[in-house]
């Protein structure tokens, strides 16, 4: 049963976010042989079309307008709905990012459709497209299907493998002109807080600090390790509450949920709420002075020791590894 599926490519700072390619891969499964159409929305985004096609889109529709330079719900909804109106797809996939979380439910509301959010796997099974997603912050998983209408999903970053890039792939790029009006919420200013390093929700490696880090300066060795490994820095609620770091680093049931390949927990005891945010990491390493710390129960590897000694040593050791590989 082949379907036409639209995918929104997400652009940040002039490049396509990885989740765009993961969304295309998911869309391919939903399409079951049908056409996958990449959509780019922004002021001037045509240069990114080729990359969407190389990563699996069959063709690209551009909606370019100076009013779309920054994301607004009103602007992007008008743009995407115009594409949907033109293409009449049977499937729609977005990344489960800040943008996707904000926009997708609105589109679903407008179209009176279902929406399956924060999907970690997609497969065809028993005549249905089955979506897997975490619930209760990853303490359990559910498999869901759409029973009526548009097959619409948002995909959690870093969980669905993108298709293999094929630089020889080419596809038609067309433009859709949309009159963007009545933006009811205007961004006046953007304050960049997420400073150095990789985005936490897309990072393949996360180095995380807890109360054991003891101070804001205590995060420095963790930042260095993250830099050597090309990873992001996260934190437990305890560290954020104690003002050792900003809440945007918090990983846990009421913070971010991450699924990196490697999660190194430093000075984190492992409260159930924190585990909910990281227990589905592929490999977990725990460094804690307390041998009884809960975190050791779910860690693949553990070091009982002082993180201020262990982390710099790890950084040195990884540097050596990188030099030799």
């Amino acid at each position, binding site marked *: 049963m082949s379907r036409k599926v639209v995918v929104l490519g997400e652009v940040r700072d002039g490049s396509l976010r990885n989740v765009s390619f993961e969304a295309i891969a998911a869309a391919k499964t939903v399409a079951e042989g049908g056409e996958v159409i990449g959509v780019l929305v922004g002021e001037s985004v045509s240069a990114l079309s080729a990359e969407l096609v190389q990563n699996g889109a069959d063709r690209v529709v551009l909606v370019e307008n100076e009013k779309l330079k920054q994301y607004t719900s009103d602007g992007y909804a008008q743009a995407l709905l115009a594409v949907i109106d033109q293409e009449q797809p049977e499937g729609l996939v977005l990344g489960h990012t800040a943008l996707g979380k904000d926009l997708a439910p609105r589109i679903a509301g407008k179209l009176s459709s279902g929406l399956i959010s924060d999907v970690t796997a997609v497969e065809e099974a028993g005549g249905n497209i089955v979506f897997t997603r975490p619930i209760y912050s990853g303490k359990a998983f559910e498999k869901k299907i759409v029973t009526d209408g548009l097959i619409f999903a948002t995909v959690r970053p870093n969980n669905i493998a993108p298709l293999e890039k094929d630089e020889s792939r080419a596809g038609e790029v067309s433009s859709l002109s949309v009159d963007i009006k009545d933006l009811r919420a205007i961004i006046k200013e953007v304050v960049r807080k997420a400073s150095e390093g990789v985005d936490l929700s897309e990072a393949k490696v996360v180095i995380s600090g807890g109360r054991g880090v003891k101070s804001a300066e205590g995060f420095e060795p963790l930042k260095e390790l993250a830099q050597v490994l090309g990873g992001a820095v996260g934190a437990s609620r305890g560290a954020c509450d104690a003002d050792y770091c900003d809440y945007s680093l918090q990983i846990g049931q009421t913070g971010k949920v991450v699924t990196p390949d490697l999660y190194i927990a430093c000075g984190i005891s492992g409260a159930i709420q924190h585990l909910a945010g990281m227990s589905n990491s592929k490999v977990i390493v725990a460094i804690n002075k307390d041998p009884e710390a809960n975190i050791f129960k779910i860690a693949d*590897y553990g070091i009982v020791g002082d993180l201020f000694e262990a982390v710099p040593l790890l950084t040195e050791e990884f540097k050596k590894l990188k030099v030799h590989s």
Partner: protein
Amino acid sequence: MNIYVLMKRTFDTEEKISISGGKINEDGAEFIINPYDEYAIEEAIQLRDANGGEITVLSVGNEETEKQLRTALAMGADKAVLINTEDDIENGDQYTTAKILAEYLKDKDADLIIGGNVAIDGGSGQVGPRVAELLNIPYVTTITKLEIEGTNVTVTRDVEGDAEIIETSLPLLITAQQGLNEPRYPSLPGIMKAKKKPLEELELDDLDLEEDDVEAKTKTIEIYLPPKKEAGKVLAGDLNDQVKELVHLLHTEAKVI
């Protein structure tokens, strides 16, 4: 100001999840107000105290949801409304919930509708934007600061760590992110007062809705627990050696570096 707060009853964050009969086992579980909805209730209270007005806390749920609505009243909300769907709907989804809420809200002339940005059980975060769309009012999600002057609104939105300062106006729907405020604990006098505050219970009939009108568009076909993690290796020996061993294992055994 006519303020409505969207609230959901969820498992307590300490709860271990178990499955029975293919569904999440609720026996003996502690329930709470979804933590993100607490920020919404607190923000509403602060706004009403500063600007005057009335707060109605609204929830789609079952009989048990009354407890959490009373807690919201005890915190300081003025009225509560429970839309009890227990007898009418077996398996609703976000389409269902949003449609019901929007149907209730459509003639209420709300100035501000506030919800938590996501529920810690479902984790989808869809209902807020869906309701705003159905009511055709603007919305801003994941806000960490709210300032209202007349009908002019300035909000700060958390976008994966960055902060966007956004200008918009009432009527508006917003969803709360952690850091918006520090929700108060209900006081004893608050708890006593809450018993007398109005808590209205409605069913689909009262909203002129049929089960067909709000039938779910999606369905859960399976729920399962993630595989239990086997005990890992706690390394031993001199710290230097442990570190070398760890790097070696991560490279050769786990193959993540």
